[in-house]
Every structure is written in structure tokens, then in C-alpha cells.
């Protein structure tokens, strides 16, 4: 991602942001509220379009006009609000806008059996024991919902999984489970982009940390070569990059 800039009216949300992600690594973006972390994510996942700059993905410049285009390219996002439909079942949510159908064109009917089976496989390969794929999401606990959302992001052979505050609303145990999932995604060779306010978590999980401040990406550090103090100093601006 090179020189990415985006303004909402008079507010310059991003200024010449440069950052890189590697497959098989967890890359974290940290920064204070309003630093532009979520905006970067929305640019990558096709919700916002950058005013200038370019995103290079798999070696070629890409430009996603909508979330669907990004999903087709293998970029899945776990949004902060999870983007699950409470009144639909787990399998319906997993296959939302990815439904398997019999037949073609306007007479295509849903292949509910195949989707249920596929959902069961997705859920079990990720060792995410949500109660049952045919239960409604409304019945799930916070951690189970998070698991379904991550499962959806990880399930469709995605190459890049973006997670915006995946554990912000979770308890200690469920956070541990989600972290385990993130490690698993990494070990499968996918790129994971993690946004978190939890420094301990960032230091524990990530391979590389990018620090954002006031719409700029001010520093990038290998996690192994940095410390919590240094990152805090970078975020607050006490230390220059």
C-alpha cells in the first residue's frame, strides 16, 4: 500500500499512508482513537476508495469499488460489528452472498444441504465449536458470534483476513480462543491484518507492527525488535520514528 490518502470533506483521514503485509504473518496496526486505523481497513476491504495512492495486492495494483470485489480477490474482513444477521442461521450467515445454488439464472434454487454440510466442515476444520450450523446467530454467545464471523472470513480460501478489534467485546477465555484462531490462520500461510488496542495482544500475536498517528503511518517495527514502551511512545508522539 503506497501513499494512500483519503479526505472526508475537510477532514484529512489518511495522509500518505505506507504499509506492507506479508503472507503467513500477523501484521498489526496500532494507534490512538481517530488515528485512521479503521479507515485504512475500509480502504483495503473496498468500503472506501482512497483519493490518491495505490494498493498493490499480489504484485499488481488493485482498486476495489465495493466490498464484494475485495471479497472476490480473497480479502475478507471481520468487522467490529461482526456483520452477522441475527435472525439467520449460522450456515446462512457463513454463506451470505456466497450461496450455493442448483440450476442457473432466475430459477436457481438454494442448495441448503450442501451449504449446511459445507458450513459444518468450515466450522469443524477451524475447531470452532459453535453449537450447530442450523441454530440462529441470535442464540450464540459473544465468542461464538466472533468465531462465526472469523470462520466466514477464513472459510472461502481467503488470502488476507482483516480483523478490526476482534476481541474488544470478549471475555478472557473467549479472547484466548480467538487468538488461537488467529495463530491458526497465520500458520495456514494467510496474511492477517489485526487492529487492536490491546498492546499485550499485539506483542503476543503479531510479527510486524505499524503505528498510526493523526492519519499518518509514522513507524513500522518488527515485533520481535520492539517493546511496549517504544510503541506507546510512537503512538503518543513522544518518540519520533
Amino acid at each position, binding site marked *: 500500500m503506497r501513499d494512500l490518502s483519503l479526505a472526508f470533506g475537510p477532514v484529512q483521514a489518511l495522509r500518505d499512508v505506507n504499509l506492507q503485509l506479508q503472507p503467513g504473518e500477523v501484521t498489526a496496526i496500532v494507534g490512538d482513537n481517530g488515528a485512521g486505523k479503521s479507515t485504512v481497513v475500509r480502504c483495503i476491504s473496498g*468500503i472506501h476508495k482512497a483519493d490518491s495512492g495505490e494498493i498493490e495486492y499480489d504484485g499488481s495494483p488493485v482498486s476495489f469499488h*465495493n*466490498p*464484494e470485489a475485495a*471479497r472476490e480477490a480473497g480479502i475478507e*474482513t471481520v*468487522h467490529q*460489528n*461482526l*456483520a*452477522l*444477521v*441475527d*435472525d*439467520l*442461521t449460522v450456515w*446462512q*450467515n457463513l454463506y*451470505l*452472498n*456466497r*450461496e450455493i*445454488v442448483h440450476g442457473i439464472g432466475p430459477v*436457481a*434454487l*438454494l442448495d*441448503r444441504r450442501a451449504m449446511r454440510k459445507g458450513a459444518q466442515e468450515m466450522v*469443524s*476444520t477451524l*475447531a*470452532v*465449536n*459453535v*453449537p*450447530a450450523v*442450523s*441454530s*440462529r446467530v*441470535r*442464540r*450464540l*454467545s*459473544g*465468542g*461464538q458470534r466472533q*468465531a462465526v464471523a472469523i470462520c466466514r472470513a477464513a472459510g472461502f480460501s481467503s488470502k488476507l483476513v482483516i480483523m478490526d478489534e476482534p476481541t474488544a*467485546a*470478549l*471475555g*478472557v*477465555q*473467549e479472547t*484466548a*480462543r480467538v487468538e*488461537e484462531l488467529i495463530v491458526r490462520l497465520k500458520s495456514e500461510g494467510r496474511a492477517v491484518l489485526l487492529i487492536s488496542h490491546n498492546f499485550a495482544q499485539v506483542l503476543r500475536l503479531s510479527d510486524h507492527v505499524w503505528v498510526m498517528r493523526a492519519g499518518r503511518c509514522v513507524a513500522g517495527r518488527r515485533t520481535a525488535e520492539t517493546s511496549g514502551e517504544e510503541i506507546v511512545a510512537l503512538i503518543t508522539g513522544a518518540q519520533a520514528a
Partner: protein
Amino acid sequence: MTQTPTPSAGRRAPTSDPTTATSSAGTTTATTTADTSAAATVPGGPSQSWTHRLADPSFWADWAALIGLVVLCVIFQIGNSTFLNINNIQAMLVAASILVVLSLGQTFVIATAGIDLSIASAMTLGAVCFGSAFGNGQPLWLCCVVAVAGSASVGLVNGLLIGVAGITDFIVTLGTLSAAAGAALVVSNGQPTTIVDRFLLRLSTDGIGRIGWPVLVAAALAVLSHVVLFHTRFGTHVLAVGGSKEAATATGISVGRIKVAVYSISGTVAGVGAILLVARIGASEPAANTAFLLNSVAAVVLGGVSLFGGRATIIGPVLGALLLTALANGLTLLGVSEFYQPIAVGVVVVVAALIRRFQKRAPRPLLPPEAPRALPSSRCETCPWPSARSRPCAT
């Protein structure tokens, strides 16, 4: 309708974290024993046993229309033994068919958390378009096409204003309610057109065996609607848009396109309703048909469809429409003045809403319950996830 905890919910929820229950009480109901045990053992799957379902109050709320219909049938049958006479049942089914058709369209709209207030006006416009074409000596098939096109255009305008221009459903359809009624007056010049045609006469009086054509048309549309809503991608997307606009957008579903589609469906079925209406009364009138509008919304609500979208069935609104028709018919048979019928409809709808208010739903905790005390044995040995299955999970 907001969910509120039932009085006993707090006490009967041993597995739910009390802070969770209170913090989420504003939007969702608290845990109940029935719900947690269901979620832990047989969570809402097809394996859910009938005894479980019967113990769940939401089952009763979902089937309020059917239960109400049975109760009404019993009461009216006791009051007047001709109520369940085969001829009266036939008459009721035919009388209900227009309302059933309109309710189907209304269901699609309400499933996306919208409301179509213009549905009856669209039907009126379709009917007078039919009359106008008929008056000009057009062939009958063309009259039918004109009727459907007239009504569907109202739906399309609704859809474009709501889905593309982004104006609130209520305001747009309130506007088109008035505009379509006005257009009907303009097209018809305020005059009813008498339509005498053998095909239409047969449509309203004949049928296959003892089942009238209007009933068959309504039944066919109901089956089609069910297939569309539950067995196509489009139907899933309709429910997704109604359930969570944000989730739908994030997964790449175009909310605007779905809105245009559901309002167009609503307008199109209003056109079918217009043909049935013309056949039934043998004329096209620029009448307001307000009762059809209110009853179509009432039937959908009785049928257990959430006005907030995301939850819908087809059988529910159909039963709701049958219930409302049976109510009017039964009161007439009992010799109650027809002036009381709107009151009865109002009472039934509010009571149905009241039942739904007290139905219980599984909780949606803001914070997950720590340490699942209720399921120590069902935890998987090798992975940290609580397993719903008795055997250890795959890893």
C-alpha cells in the same frame, strides 16, 4: 416491539450471568431455562424435539394466527352451526384470496423492515387501468397486463425512491398512497366502469372442483412466494437486509437493489389483486380500499412477521389473512353489526402484538458468560471451545 424479560426470566436463568442479562435487557430478553438448555443440547436445529418446541413460548407466538383461527372457528361454530359449512368455508376462502395476495406482497416488504402503505392504492390504480383498457375495447389479456403494469409501476416508484434516493419507507409509501389514489381518480375520471366478461365471471365463480379460481391463484402465489423467500439467494438477501443492513452491505449485498425488488413485487401482486378485485365486483372503481391496506399489514403482523424485518414466513401472513376474513364472516353470521368489525380486527391485531411482546428469545449477551458452569462435561478435551456435541470435536 421491544423484547422485555418475562417476570420469571431472571430467576429461571441459572446459567446466565446476571450482569449480562441486565446489560442486554434493553434490546433482548433475558435467558430462560428453556432457551439455555435448548442452546446447550439441541440448539434450534432440525433435531429439536416437539416437546421442546411446545415448551418454547415463541413457538406459540409464531403460530398465533393458526391458534387464533382455530379458536375463532370453535367460537363461531358454537355460535352458528353454518359457520363451518362447506359452502361458507368456500365463500370465506374466495373472500380471503385478495387479502392473501396483498399480504404476500406486504410480507416481502416488511421482511426488509419496510412497509408498503400504498399497496391498496396501487391495487385501485391497477383496477381502474383495467377498466380503462376494457372500456377502450382492448382484449382481456391486455387489460390484465395493463392492470399489473399500473400497480407494478407504483411499486417500482416506491422502490426507486426508497432504495436509490434513500427516503424513508413510511414517507414514500404514504406519498404514493395518495398519489396512486389520485391517479386512479384521474384515469377513471372518478367514475366506476362496469365490466361484463364471461372469462372474468368464470374467474370469480368457477374453480377446480369446489375450490374457486381466486383461491387457486392466491395459493399458487403463496407457494411461489415461499419458494422465492426461502429457496433462492434473493430471498436470503431479503431477510439479510431486513435483519441487518450493515451485515448485508458488508457482505456485498446491494440494499438498494433489494428494496427496489421487494417494492416491485409488492406492486406486482397488487396488480394480481386488482384483477381478482375487478372479477369479484364486476366493475372497476376508484375507491380507496383502505380496509385492504390495514388488513394486509394486520395479516402480516398476525402471521408473526417482525415489523423490524429479518424474520418472516409465508404461511403466517396467509393464516393471518384467513383469520381476519373468518372474523368478519363469523361476526356477520352471529348478526353483529358490521360497524363492530373494524373494532374486532383492531383488538385481534393488538392482542397478537401483545403475545409477541411476551415471547422469549435466546439472549444476545454483550459480554460472554465466563466459565460455562452448566456445561462442564460437554467441553472438548483437546480444544478450548465449548463443545455442543457429546463426543470430542475433530481436533
